[in-house]
């Protein structure tokens, strides 16, 4: 008898399926916009105005970095909680409500962005409908209020999703008081907790400053303050995308390899470290921002480097698990076991190649995170190359590979073509190799990011090897291969949905463990403790920089009467002393 997810949790499967299709739609539009940008800025093929480039760039960033990733995340997390707790959500109507709220938010944001393509955008709420503010959306770029309202609805939707997962766990805990939190649920809960912490920054930025500013309630904002509040959220969101990827690597890759997860306790430590350290490091995106003392930036760099630890632990644990699986399949030798892995399986191969790309992304990330060497690559195409390896491959390729397993699980329909799926994940790897390599190398000689026309008069970039034209061609070739891969993925998903139901869908299971939760100290499951420490670390990392920014530039900009933050007389000397120590 078939025992797929849709058989166990038919109501939840419908929500998960809807979330996946929402993410695929965003992936399709955002991915095509990526090709448009690559062809335009490399001057290979131009069919949009350069002024529209920034509308395309905003849509590409928001639809892929926020919509695609987070819709897929909520699908995976709902699956992980219900599967590992072996119970449905408490109230499926509530589950649908947060999904609908996220969709509503996405539609509002998309309407605001896409209006940028109109010659005469409509005027709503007293201002032109327009949102060419890029994925980072901080001031001085200003969007229409509908853009910010949409973002708020989307984020609140994710908060409610998090509450849904928590209360499902609470209901389970009432019936299983002495049980350890199952690993997939543990991963979901710790991720949700740091999401709550980090999104407070962006909520404050939007609700207190950007939205009132766009509505004309206040005349100005402090740009440095909104930038800092964005990056308070903006780096943690990277880990929010990454955690469902880690969930897949920890609980699916070992099973697909034919073995078990090497260590449940180590996986719990990794997720606790992400809860603690994901947020108090956002200032590493602001190394070149004037107005933030170097000492604060140094603290952010230190915290960032600490986060290499859970990533290295993950590399060890996941590879050890894969080796265990390969040896169960008859693999032998120091490296010979690699050939025994199921490379014919697109789910496994996609995830494994994504993990390999993530290793490269980790190295370029260390360069971004180092204060001194960051100055070399800041705001260059290097950074774009970096995050196309992280979110664009480690996350996106893992999600696409996972979809080949999940879509049959939530629909009961067999995958249309495993061969096309294998070709698709390999093509993504090759396309991204071409594109990201050229972006990194271009960044090294100063090619800027976020510009439609990096071709300057009376100035030539000087690549160490090759020519600018060769690198542009490499980027364009990579982008074309990526879009072909994307089309193959979507084709497979669509044709799978037209398949009839099948009895040969694999059971809905995840990897067992070689070292299980019984080997993990119980304190690891103390979510209140870790959350409290995470909050304290955030307070340490952000209180003084934020106070300093507000003191020097005011809440709503320098010189705006009546809006300056006034510190108490007895706080001022203490703050000054601390600032001198840190700076």
């Amino acid at each position: 008898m078939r025992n797929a997810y849709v058989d166990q949790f038919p109501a939840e499967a419908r929500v998960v399926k809807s979330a996946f299709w929402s993410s695929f739609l965003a992936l399709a539009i955002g991915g095509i916009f990526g090709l448009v940008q690559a062809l335009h800025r490399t001057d290979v093929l131009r069919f949009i105005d350069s002024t529209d480039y920034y509308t395309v760039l905003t849509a590409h960033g928001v639809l892929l970095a926020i919509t695609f990733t987070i819709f897929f995340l909520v699908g995976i997390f709902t699956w992980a909680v219900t599967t590992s707790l072996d119970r449905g959500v408490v109230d499926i109507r509530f589950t649908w409500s947060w999904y609908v709220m996220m969709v509503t938010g996405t539609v509002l944001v998309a309407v605001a962005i896409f209006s940028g393509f109109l010659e005469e955008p409509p005027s709503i709420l007293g201002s032109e409908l327009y949102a060419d503010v890029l994925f980072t959306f901080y001031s001085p770029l200003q969007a229409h209020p509908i853009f910010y309202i949409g973002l708020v609805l989307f984020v609140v939707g994710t908060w409610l999703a998090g509450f849904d997962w928590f209360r499902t766990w609470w209901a389970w805990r009432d019936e299983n008081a002495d049980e350890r939190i199952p690993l997939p649920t543990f991963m979901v809960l710790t991720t949700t907790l740091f999401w709550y912490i980090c999104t407070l920054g962006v909520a404050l930025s939007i609700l207190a400053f950007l939205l009132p500013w766009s509505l004309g309630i206040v005349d100005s904002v402090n740009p440095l303050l909104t930038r800092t509040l964005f990056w308070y959220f903006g780096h943690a969101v990277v880990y929010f995308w990454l955690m469902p990827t880690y969930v897949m690597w920890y609980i699916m890759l070992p099973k697909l390899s034919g073995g078990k997860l090497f260590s449940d306790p180590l996986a719990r430590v990794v997720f606790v470290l992400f809860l603690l350290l994901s947020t108090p490091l956002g200032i590493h995106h602001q190394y070149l921002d004037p107005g933030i003392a170097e000492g604060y930036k140094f603290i952010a760099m230190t915290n960032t480097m600490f986060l290499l630890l859970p990533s290295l632990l993950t590399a060890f644990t996941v590879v050890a698990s894969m080796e265990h699986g390969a040896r169960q399949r008859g693999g032998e030798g120091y490296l010979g076991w690699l050939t025994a892995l199921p490379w014919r399986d697109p789910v496994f191969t996609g995830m494994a190649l994504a993990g390999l790309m993530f290793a490269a992304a980790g190295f370029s990330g260390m360069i971004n995170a180092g204060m001194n060497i960051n100055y070399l690559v800041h705001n260059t195409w290097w950074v774009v190359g970096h995050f196309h390896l992280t979110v664009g491959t480690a996350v996106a390729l893992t999600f696409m590979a996972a979809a080949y397993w999940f879509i049959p699980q939530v629909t009961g329909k067999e995958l249309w073509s495993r061969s096309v799926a294998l070709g698709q994940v390999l093509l993504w790897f090759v396309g991204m190799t071409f594109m990201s390599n050229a972006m990194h190398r271009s960044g090294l000689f100063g090619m800027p990011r976020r510009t439609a026309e990096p071709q300057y008069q009376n100035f030539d970039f000087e690549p160490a090897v090759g020519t600018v034209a060769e690198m542009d061609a490499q980027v364009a070739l990579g982008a074309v291969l990526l879009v072909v891969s994307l089309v193959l993925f979507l084709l497979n998903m669509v044709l799978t949905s037209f398949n009839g139901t099948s009895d040969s869908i694999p059971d809905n299971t995840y990897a067992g463990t070689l070292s299980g939760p019984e080997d993990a100290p119980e304190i690891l499951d103390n979510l209140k403790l870790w959350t409290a420490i995470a909050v304290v670390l955030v307070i340490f990392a952000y209180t003084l920089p934020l106070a300093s920014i507000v003191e020097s530039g005011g809440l709503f900009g320098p010189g705006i009467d009546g809006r300056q933050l006034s510190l108490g007389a007895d706080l001022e000397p203490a703050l000054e002393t601390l600032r001198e120590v840190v700076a």
Partner: protein
Amino acid sequence: MRVSKGALLVGIVLLVPFVIELRTALSWFGIEITVVESALVGLALAVAITAWALWPPNEDGEAADRS
């Protein structure tokens, strides 16, 4: 085959980043090669890996393909 067809395909795909980086790496030693020369090196390596994988024949790869 020494390895499965899937493993062979992945092995060839994994050559791509090495071949692309080869130009940069060789330039450190004062050796500059063109894009076409890089592609030819990549092609030669792919042929070499394929030949290694196909010869001498044994059952391991076929068994891995079936699993």
